[in-house]
Structures are given as structure tokens and as C-alpha cells.
């Protein structure tokens, strides 16, 4: 991939054409499919994010979002916005060799597709994964989805060169509006991932495991059904500290993710990132600013649960 603006243009153009059709990029889902697409099926798989000649310093970025009914229109908004992410990261120099994986979270207790996982891609093939995601529309109602299953998969079924070769964590963004179940259930893991666990894993243990590998964020968009719900935010702040972020405007999701990566990679500070947004004519700067200000300030943790002590000093962001 070249480093010039053309790289962005080529990737950007395909996305612009796709968006211009008004045709949903959730074509697979809209075609009536209700089972996981074979390319997104997590069963018995490992997702690899590898260095290559073109991408010698890959940095892994996983973006998973809740596709259950409680999220309302948010998944479709994300679908139109997420293809911009690669371009944003490259154009602004926030990350040199990003490899992005898209995935979706449902409810393993009642949904047919509790977990859908794409591949880490360095070009817009990741958009194809986005198009294969089945929108559940189920779940909801009990304020809980199977986020813990997704965290389990990312913790144990990914291989990241940035982590194993260079000791740098990847980034994980989970976009959702509900609580996780309190434990990763061995039975669900067997069905969905194909692993034999001897016992369930408590949510805190899997969170701490995934955070060793990924700098992990939870984004709670306003406009989703439980948005602003203090219980949900408190739950995730209890697990992730200031990395649980409330998002005023789902349209700002790409910019928020890009800036969080830029901050994490120490490529920018928040002010510089916000000026990049303004220069690009973005109208979401205010929303991004609100969302990320606590992240940049770091340290200030709003939680009724208290933070696990292991998180202090463990988080690149909080040292900024």
C-alpha cells in the first residue's frame, strides 16, 4: 500500500460507490439469511493479524458491534460509517499499517448468530465482511448480550504479530448498549467456538485476559435503546474504567475510534485530532471531543464497581 493520498482514494472510492447506491451493505442479511455466513463463522477458527512486506508493523484493530434489536438503527448507521475507518487512520497518519477486523455480537441464549467474526484485513476486503454480517434483531429485553463470548474469542482465538513480535497490544472496540453475562459459559463456547472448557470463566477474568492483548473500549451510542442507561455505563466502567465511552452521535463512531487509536499510538493529542476532524469538514468533532475527553485526561474513573487494581498502569491511554 502506498503512503500517499492515493491509497486512501482507491479504498475510499469503492466505499463511496457502494454507499451511493442506497443498497444496504448488509446485503447478506437483507437477503433473508439467518445463519452465520461461512466466512464469519468462529467455530474452530483462529484470526491472524500478521506482518508482511507491505505492512511490516501491523497494528490489529477489532471492531465488534451489537446487532440485536435493542440497538435499533445503530448497526445500519455503523455499516455506512465503518468503511471510512481505514481511510481516516491512514490519511491522518494515526496508524501506519492498520489491520481491521469487523465482527458482530448477539445473544447466545436465544439468537441463532451469537458471534460473527471477520478477518483482519489491510484493505477494503474488510467491507465485504461487513456485508456478510447478519443483523439479528433478536436479543434485547433482558439488558444482557453475549459480549463475554466475543471477548473470549478475541482473547484466545487471535494471533497478533504486533503483540507477539513487538509486545504492542492491538485495539478492541465493542459497540453496544447492554450488559455482558457474568460468565463465559463452557457450553456456549463449545457450540460457538468448538473449544472444550472444563468450567465457566467469570467475566472479570476474561476481560483482564483480553486486555492483555487488546487495549479495549466499550462504546455506548446514544440512540440505542439503553443508551444513557446508568446501569450499563457503570457496568462497563467497572470493567474498563475510562475506556467505557458514551457516544453522543453514532455518526461519530469512526472518528472516535480513529482518534482513540491515534491517541493510543501517541500519533496525536486530542486537540490535534480534533483539528484534523475540523480540517476534514467533519461535523462530529463536538461529539468526539465529549466522548474522548475523559480518555485523554486518563485516570479519572467513574465507577460504582471500582477498578481492578491490575488495570492501573496497564493501560497506555491512561498514561497520556
Amino acid at each position, binding site marked *: 500500500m502506498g503512503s500517499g493520498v492515493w491509497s486512501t*482514494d*482507491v*479504498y475510499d*472510492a*469503492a466505499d463511496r460507490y457502494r454507499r*451511493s447506491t442506497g443498497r444496504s451493505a448488509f446485503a447478506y442479511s437483507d437477503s433473508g439469511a439467518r445463519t452465520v455466513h461461512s466466512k464469519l463463522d468462529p467455530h474452530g477458527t483462529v484470526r491472524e493479524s500478521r506482518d508482511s512486506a507491505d505492512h511490516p508493523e501491523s497494528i490489529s484493530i477489532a471492531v465488534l458491534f451489537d446487532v440485536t434489536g435493542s440497538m435499533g438503527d445503530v448497526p445500519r448507521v455503523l455499516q455506512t460509517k465503518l468503511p471510512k475507518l481505514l481511510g481516516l487512520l491512514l490519511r491522518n497518519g494515526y496508524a501506519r499499517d492498520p489491520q481491521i477486523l469487523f465482527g458482530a455480537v448477539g445473544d447466545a441464549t436465544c439468537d441463532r448468530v451469537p458471534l460473527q467474526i471477520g478477518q483482519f484485513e489491510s484493505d477494503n476486503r474488510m467491507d465485504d465482511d461487513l456485508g456478510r454480517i447478519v443483523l439479528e434483531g433478536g436479543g434485547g429485553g433482558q439488558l444482557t448480550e453475549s459480549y463475554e463470548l466475543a471477548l473470549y474469542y478475541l482473547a484466545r482465538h487471535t494471533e497478533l504479530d504486533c503483540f507477539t513480535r513487538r509486545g504492542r497490544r492491538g485495539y478492541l472496540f465493542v459497540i453496544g448498549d447492554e450488559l455482558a453475562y457474568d460468565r463465559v459459559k463452557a457450553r456456549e463456547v463449545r457450540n460457538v467456538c468448538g473449544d472444550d472448557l472444563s468450567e465457566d470463566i467469570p467475566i472479570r477474568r476474561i476481560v483482564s485476559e483480553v486486555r492483555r492483548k487488546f487495549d479495549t473500549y466499550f462504546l455506548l451510542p446514544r440512540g440505542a435503546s439503553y443508551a444513557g442507561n446508568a446501569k450499563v455505563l457503570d457496568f462497563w466502567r467497572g470493567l474498563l474504567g475510562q475506556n467505557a465511552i458514551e457516544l453522543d452521535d453514532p455518526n461519530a463512531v469512526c472518528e472516535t475510534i480513529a482518534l482513540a487509536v491515534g491517541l493510543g499510538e501517541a500519533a496525536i493529542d486530542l486537540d490535534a485530532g480534533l483539528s484534523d476532524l475540523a480540517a476534514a469538514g467533519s461535523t462530529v468533532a463536538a461529539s468526539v471531543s465529549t466522548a474522548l475527553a475523559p480518555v485523554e485526561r486518563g485516570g479519572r474513573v467513574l465507577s460504582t464497581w471500582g477498578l481492578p487494581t491490575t488495570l492501573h498502569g496497564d493501560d497506555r491511554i491512561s498514561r497520556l
Partner: protein
Amino acid sequence: MNNVLVADLGYGDAGKGTVVDWLCAKGIDGRPVAAVVRYNGGGQAGHSVVLPDGRRHVFAQFGAGTLRGVHTHLSRFMVVDPLALVVEADHLADVGVPDALDRLTVEGDALLTTPYHRAANRAREIARGAHRHGSCGKGVGEAMGYALAHPSDAPRVADAQAPGVLGAKLAVLRDRLVDELGPLDVPPVEATVRAFGAFAARVPIVSRAFLGNLLAVGPVVFEGAQGVLLDEWHGFHPYTTWSTTTFDNAETLLVEAGQAGNATRLGVLRVVTTRHGPGPLVTEDPALPLTDPNNPTNRWQGRFRFGHFDAVAHRYAIEVCGGVDGIALTHLDIVGPALKFCDSYDWTDRLLPGPVGDLARQEALTRRLFSTRPRFSNGPVDWPSAVSAALDAPVVVTSHGPTADGKQVLRPNWAARAHPAAAGGHPAR
């Protein structure tokens, strides 16, 4: 029914955009315009249109009638830039035209300009340094030059439908350019194929016969790009473009559609003669108190230059393109005592057209023009009459402001008559 061919009789920037917009807003002889056809150039065009409500767009590939809901057809004489096209469509959506891509057809034989052409174009202009040619840096000339050298290897619009074919052509193109110019900052072939495939999936790619359908619907406006004085053969070599900027391509398209000569030729001129980029501008006067908000200084063309009305150069333009039926004279709102009128040079009042292909002759002419001095008289009181008399062609419409409302028709039914010289069909190139 009458079709209208629009061309700039100077070095570009005279106001083709606003004239085409006006034609599409008002219709031709009381009939709505069926389509705007681009018949030369590529995405380097910059045809500015302002609507009365203040919305504006600078058209690069879409026809300048798009804000009026008029269909655009890109003929095979156009060099198509799919990456820029969709960015332009998005901007059109921002100014209230969300369906521009739904009103677009592209001829499959048209050349494509690619990131590889663009990178090569820029590498060459940088290497030329002070001797740059004033290229826009968008790879249009590079695409045409490559197609001349390797006609069967040149990527064309229809190839975007066949990823295997396109990928092979792009790989050969990239390798040839890198061999010649050294490493270029370009994206991988597969990513480019993917982007062009998205273009092909979105935009209808049509055959040569499609234009006949448009002509059957109603009058068609053929929108030229750049200016006749930049023509690849008749311009002042080497400060020219890789494109035929006369009416020839448009006449060829009409002949093929069985409508030979069924068109009125409208030449566009400003009350000042301007040039963006290097090359002869005999009447140049840096003291002219003018600026052009549509033409900021850019890295590839440099600053925008103003000169007094150069009737000698414009007479030459009319002669090389075989005559015009009418002139649209723009920017009458800037007329003032500072503007002068040049009807002759210190050595002649007529530049003789040469044969197509004699670039040595054109280069000699260029050298002569660099040492030519203009003879000025004071600007006329009645600009339309003075221009009509000096160029022996009637000014049929004048423009007094940026919008269609600022146009004044001096000759009703000006479009009723076809151009006599073209009635038998213009020699096709």
C-alpha cells in the same frame, strides 16, 4: 430540433459552465435539454456553476447541467477518472443533487485515467521544473499519451467490468511507468481494480450507439473542456493539452449518430483573455485589478493570469475550429475603464492556422508570440458589437453575473440554425 456545441475560444475559464447551466435551465428553442455530452478532456475541467440560491459546484466530469437535473453522457473522447467521479458525485449530493450517478452514462471505449497515470504525470511535471507545461497534474495527458503509444494496452472504461483484463492492463501500465520514471507512490493493482469495479457496478457503461437515444429525446448540449487555444494541434505548442478542443469530436459523434451537422456552434469568451499556467498570453497585464475565485494558484498550474481581450488570438481560434454560429460573451459585469481591446499585434492582425500535425510550426509560432507586442485601443462602450465586428461572428448571449438569471439573450432563435460548414459532416479524426 437543434443541438448546441459549446467550446471555449480562448485558453479556458471563459464560462462554459455557466453557459451550459443557463442552456439547461432555459431549454433550447423552448425544449428541455435531454443531455449534456462531454466530448473532450477529462477530470481536469473546472466548469463553475452558481445557482440563484447560492449553491455552487465546479464541474469536472459531470455535465454542467447536472444541477438542473439534466443527464450527463461521457463520450469516448473523454478521459474518465472513476475515483474523482464519485467524489464529485458526493459533493453534488451535498449541494442537493443526490442522484447525479443515476443520471450518468459512460461510453465503454473511453480511456481511464488511473492513479498510475496521475503519479507519472506529477513525476514528469516535477522533473520539468521551471519548464513545466502547465499540466493540471491529474493524469489526463498521461492517459492519452499512453494510449497513443500502446493502444491495445490502454485501460478503458469497459475494462472496469472485467477485473482480470483490467488488472493485467494496470500491472503492465504500472511496470512500464516505474521502469521509465523510477519508483512511484501508487496503490496496489488489486485495490485499484476493486475501486474501478465498484465504479462499473454503479454507472451504466454503454456502447457508441447510445448517443442516438439521447438525441432522439431532445436537444443535446455538447460541453467542451478547456479552450481551443490549448488544442493539441492548433494550440501554441508545447503549452497545450492532449486533447482536441475544437468542435471536431462533437461533430464526429453527431455524424456517427446520423445527425451530421445538426447543431449550432456556440463559442464562449470573456471580456478579458485569461490563462491558467505558463504559455503565451500576448495581452497579459498584471496590473489588471481582477481576481478569479474559481482559479486559485495551484502547485501544478501556478497563478491565474489576466490579459486584455485578444481579438487576434480569438479570431485564430474561430478559424482553426471552422467557424462559430454565435458567441456567448461573459463577465460583462467587470467591464470598466481599465479594460482594453487588442485588435492587432505589432506584426499582424491574423494568425494563420497550420496543418494538423505540424508541431514544429506551432512551436515556432509560440516563440514568436512570446516576443509579440499587442496594440491596444480603449475598451469599447458596446462590447457585444465590438466583439461581433472584430470576430465576424454574432454575440448572441451575454453574461452579467454568475447565475443563469444574469444572462441576456441578444438574438432570439440563435440556436435555430445549424452550422453550415458542418452540414456535410466534419472530417472525423
